[in-house]
């Protein structure tokens, strides 16, 4: 069983090598090789789910894998999953499969495109599986590489700027995180477990001080903020969010989906896996700061989204807003709040992926994304009448995104609010406003694009074809099913979240 994680992690790389072996002119073969690879990878993640023991709170012992890597620094190739990472891994498997199908229309340098996608998938798995801090960092950085090229080569008209911006922002955060990693390495005496994430956990740095710039600093607080910076940029939390609209607008559809669906979750995952358990007392101490930043993200992202005329930019800001809910839920540090946050990570992954895919479908027909064109005329209009299938799927995604009960977004947001109300009442009262504005920008966008007479331009578009409907159906099923009955996901995570809360409760 312990090899299973390795299979999930390395299978995309095998696929990538296979893709690289196919001559670049055989475009269709490359697509099918990628499709088969991602499909098998997705099945492997489901096998992971099947062999997952929901009663175990920590890492799954029978799935963990450990092997020395750079033994002179006690760096290990150490993998493991628990209830927080498994939903993300399954989500990654699903979204890459869907993205492969949605990328069928990519014509530019197909071979490199799919090879990079598979490389990206492997590195994302690596981040969610790594139990060695150094390994985690390596995957965290390796992930940037394919991402950078995917935006920089297959992106829109301003792609280089967006790619570099994305890269530098994330890199800035990760450099500071690296300082933290090195500091931890010294703090633990460079011993056996100095890169072992699990061994670092538990609040052993609470009393430690570090002498810097002539005064004593609390080691824990200082490096909590170092980690915070690395992860907050990835989430992204206000005020580190400005790379996201650029990256999303310029990225091709599939990359946007992966970016919003999976990569943003790496930030919040980092909090849950690293920042909170390694520095629990600082996390508890600064929970209100996280809550305030989360609240600002919710409101700020929502208001900014309302002003956008570019659909993709609008949804990018909505991601800022929705990830703010995750921050709020985490800062609550209660059962409902924390579970709600992890569930929101999963639910946002499905609903926002739907939104980006739908925008991508439309973009392939119209080659623009304007709700209102710069000259003031309507970008679309009458889509509801002309493209009924498209509209229905869009409505499902949109209402899941704005948190309609019965669809997935609601239950995680409700859990987050139930979790946080007692702790930060005023912040809750303000953040609830995000639900209102969240509905406003989405429905207003919908009204402007879908209602009214069919414009001449829209008349040219075809409704969704079978392939497009095919890859939307799993997501539709997911947002409806987990909206009605979220327990399958919550069951996976509740023991692991419970363990984390037990750890944090000691410092509360």
């Amino acid at each position, binding site marked *: 069983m312990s090899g299973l994680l390795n299979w999930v992690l390395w299978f995309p790389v095998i696929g990538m090598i296979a893709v690289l072996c196919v001559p670049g002119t055989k475009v269709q073969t490359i697509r099918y090789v990628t499709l088969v690879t991602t499909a098998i990878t997705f099945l492997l993640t489901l096998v992971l789910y099947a062999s997952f023991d929901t009663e175990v709170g920590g890492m799954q012992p029978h799935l963990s894998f450990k092997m020395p890597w750079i033994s002179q620094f006690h760096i290990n190739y150490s993998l493991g999953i628990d209830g927080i990472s498994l939903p993300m891994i399954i989500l990654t498997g699903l979204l890459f499969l869907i993205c492969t199908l949605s990328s069928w229309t990519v014509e530019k340098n197909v071979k490199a495109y799919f090879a990079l996608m598979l490389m990206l998938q492997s590195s994302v798995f690596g981040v969610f599986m790594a139990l060695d801090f150094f390994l985690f960092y390596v995957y965290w950085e390796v992930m940037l590489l394919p991402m950078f090229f995917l935006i920089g080569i297959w992106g829109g008209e301003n792609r280089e700027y967006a790619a570099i911006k994305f890269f530098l922002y994330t890199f800035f955060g990760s450099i500071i995180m690296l300082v933290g990693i090195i500091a931890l390495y010294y703090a633990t005496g460079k011993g056996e477990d100095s890169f072992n994430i699990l061994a670092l956990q538990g609040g052993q740095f609470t009393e430690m001080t570090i002498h810097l710039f002539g005064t004593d600093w609390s080691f824990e607080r200082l490096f909590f903020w170092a980690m915070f910076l690395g992860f907050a940029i990835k989430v992204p939390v206000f005020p580190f969010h400005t790379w996201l609209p650029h990256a999303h607008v310029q990225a091709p559809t599939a990359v946007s989906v992966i970016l919003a669906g999976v990569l943003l979750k790496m930030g919040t995952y980092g909090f849950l896996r690293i920042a909170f358990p390694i520095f629990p007392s600082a996390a508890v101490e600064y929970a209100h700061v996280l809550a305030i930043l989360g609240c600002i993200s919710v409101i700020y992202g929502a208001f900014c989204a309302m002003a956008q005329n570019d659909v993709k930019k609008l949804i990018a800001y909505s991601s800022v807003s929705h990830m703010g809910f995750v921050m709020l839920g985490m800062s609550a540090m209660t059962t409902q709040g924390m579970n709600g946050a992890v569930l929101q990570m999963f639910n946002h992954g499905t609903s926002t992926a739907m939104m980006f895919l739908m925008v991508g479908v439309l973009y392939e027909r119209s080659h623009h994304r304007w709700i209102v064109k710069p000259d003031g005329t309507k970008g679309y209009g*009458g889509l509801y009448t002309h493209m009924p299938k498209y509209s229905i799927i869009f409505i499902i995604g949109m209402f899941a995104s704005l948190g309609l009960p019965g669809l997935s977004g*609601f239950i995680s947001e409700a859990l987050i609010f139930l979790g946080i109300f007692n702790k930060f009442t005023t912040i809750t009262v303000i953040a609830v406003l995000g639900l209102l504005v969240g509905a406003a920008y989405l429905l207003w966008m919908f009204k402007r694009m879908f209602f009214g007479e069919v414009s001449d331009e829209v008349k040219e578009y075809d409704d969704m074809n079978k392939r497009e409907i095919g890859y939307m159906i799993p997501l539709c099923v997911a947002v409806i099913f987990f909206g009605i009955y979220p327990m399958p996901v*919550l069951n996976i995570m509740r*023991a692991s979240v419970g363990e984390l809360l037990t750890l944090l409760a000691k410092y509360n």
Partner: protein
Amino acid sequence: MEYTISTIAPIFIFPFMAFVVNAFFGRKLPRQGDWLSVGAIFASFLYTLRIFGDFIFNKFSTDYYVHKVFNWIDLSYGDQFFKIDLGIYIDNMTAIMLLMVTGVATLIHLFSTWYMKGDERYGKFFVYLSLFTSAMLGLVLADNLLLLFVFWEIMGFCSYSLIGFYYEKEEAGNASLKAFMTTRIGDVFLLLGILGIWSVVGNVNYVDIYAAISQGLFEGHTVMGISLASFAAFCVFMGTVGKSAQVPLQVWLPDAMMGPTPCSALIHAATMVAAGVYLSLRMYPLMELGEVTHIIAYVGAITAFLAATIALVQTDIKAVLAFSTISQLGYMVLGIGVGSYNAAFMHLITHAVFKACLFLSAGSVIHSTHTQEMPEMGGLRKKLPITFLAMLLCTLAIAGIPIFSGFVSKDRILGDALYWGLYAGQNKVHFIVPMLGFGGAFLTAFYMFRMMFLTFFGEPKDKEVYEHCHHEHFEFNRTLPLIILAALTLGVFYSGSLTGQGEIKIFPRAAQEWFKILVAAPEVKNFESYTKEKFDFADTREEKVWEKAHYHHQSGYAGVNPDNEEGIHHAHINGAVASVIIAFSGVLLAFFLYIRRLMSPDFFVNMLKPLHRLTTHRYYFDDFYIGILLKKGLLVFNNALAFLDMGIYDRIAIDGWAKVNNWIYRASKWFDDVIVDSIAVDGTGTAVNLFNLVLRVLQSGKIQFYFVVLIVVLSGYIWSLNFIS
């Protein structure tokens, strides 16, 4: 009767399954699956009859039943405990609500098969209709506020879809957006209320909330400086304000007329707006505890009066009905505010019946004449005799003419309001509340008969419209719903006494008082014994767990302090006399103005010009919200914020780093070249070099080069570790 899940759940499941089946396969079914929707809701109606019959024939039992059906969410781990159970709560009020919803909805479904015939989205209409009805039924059956909220929002979605049903029209988009967003303001408040209650009670089951109130759990909790009970009560009431279209969130309802007329009947009578009032009734003990009843009374009275004045000047037949809905909802809310619990609920039921009938009749007229403008109608009673009679009965009911249902319920609300304003020992300023109520009643009688006279009496004003209107014959799915609903506007169905107060008795006591006996405000002290039980789904999956408790109903007038018997009596006698006089004078005024034409209505218009302008502009609510708050406020703010974000913050604070780096690069290069030469490999040097490289990438765009650097830097770090260790 033994209640089991199999006797109750079908009430919700039938229409819901009709929705699911029609949504996926409706197009392939014969008649696009309309029979499935109609049949499903009719089956629900039959199931409801059984429960209702049990409550009414079971010696007026006042039991309530809670059935935990389903453990929805369970996050318990170790000593952490969090569960959400979903269940069914049934008492007399639920039984009456269910009967009303399924009954009225069945007739509306039936009518829709006639009204929507030939529409290109015929099947789709029934899909929404089924979802809408099942959501309402789920809301009524829910045993906790969270489940109620779920269905509450789903109804919001349905109304959004139905109002925007003709989506090729731009205005339909505006109206549906407005309806959803306005009610969503209330919804967000309701959610806050739920959170507030949850923070004290630990869940939001009705019985637990009542028990918590009786045990005084709310005492001592505050939220942002105000007591938590007041906060929660106010927030929950704001939910009602949104859903039931009270001032200041009433603006969505008139626009909701964009949808097909049967859906207006559904939204305005049986489902959506009723849900808001139902919520406040259920949470009545909380409203009392939180001391927000004064606010409720004022909101209701103002709404009842303002909406009535706006209805005076409408020329669109559906708009008149829309404002009359707002006004009548105001009476219900007023009733809740003054403690007239029983009468408020009764008005909810009687209003649902006559308003559904009014809308269906209006639909019948509109379908026949192809216009909604009353000035183009006139004299239609000869062409549409059945519609005319049905509408007449309903108009008599809504106007508050004795022996009709509207009189029975509205008079009782007004009587209690009069008592509340005059005798209840409060500030005499509160007398304005019953005054607004009576004023609204007068206007109601007037504008409703104005509508009747303009539509059905006099000479046809537009010959073409009149000629094209076909003679009405008995049609099963068109006239039967009208006839049934019109018959149900008679007061005897709701109270055996003529006034609803028990003064003039027609029937033996039990039959006369059935409504009063069955419906009473929940007395929280009877829930004290309720113990919170940790419900485990796994253990009780097989058994049916019914918790049964008894709460006694109050004798006398529910909610109103019964100390002052004489005061109550006086108030009710005076109220009844005043109501009758006011109703008849309203009708007479309309008669003189629109039939006898003793005076032109224009005379009043000229006399009260500023008022007329106010009412035709609907008191500038819409202009203020959309023109100022939205366009001048929110959108400007959003644009400014977005500009700040991308134009200033991102461009200057973030991209500005590149410039700073550039300076550091030059400075360090100079430092490097001139001073340190080639020895600087320490921490700063590395960092600066990094900045240089980053900058070079920025300037040259040579990405590949950057990766080489990245790898070199990384190796450098590893190497430095090696060096240190």
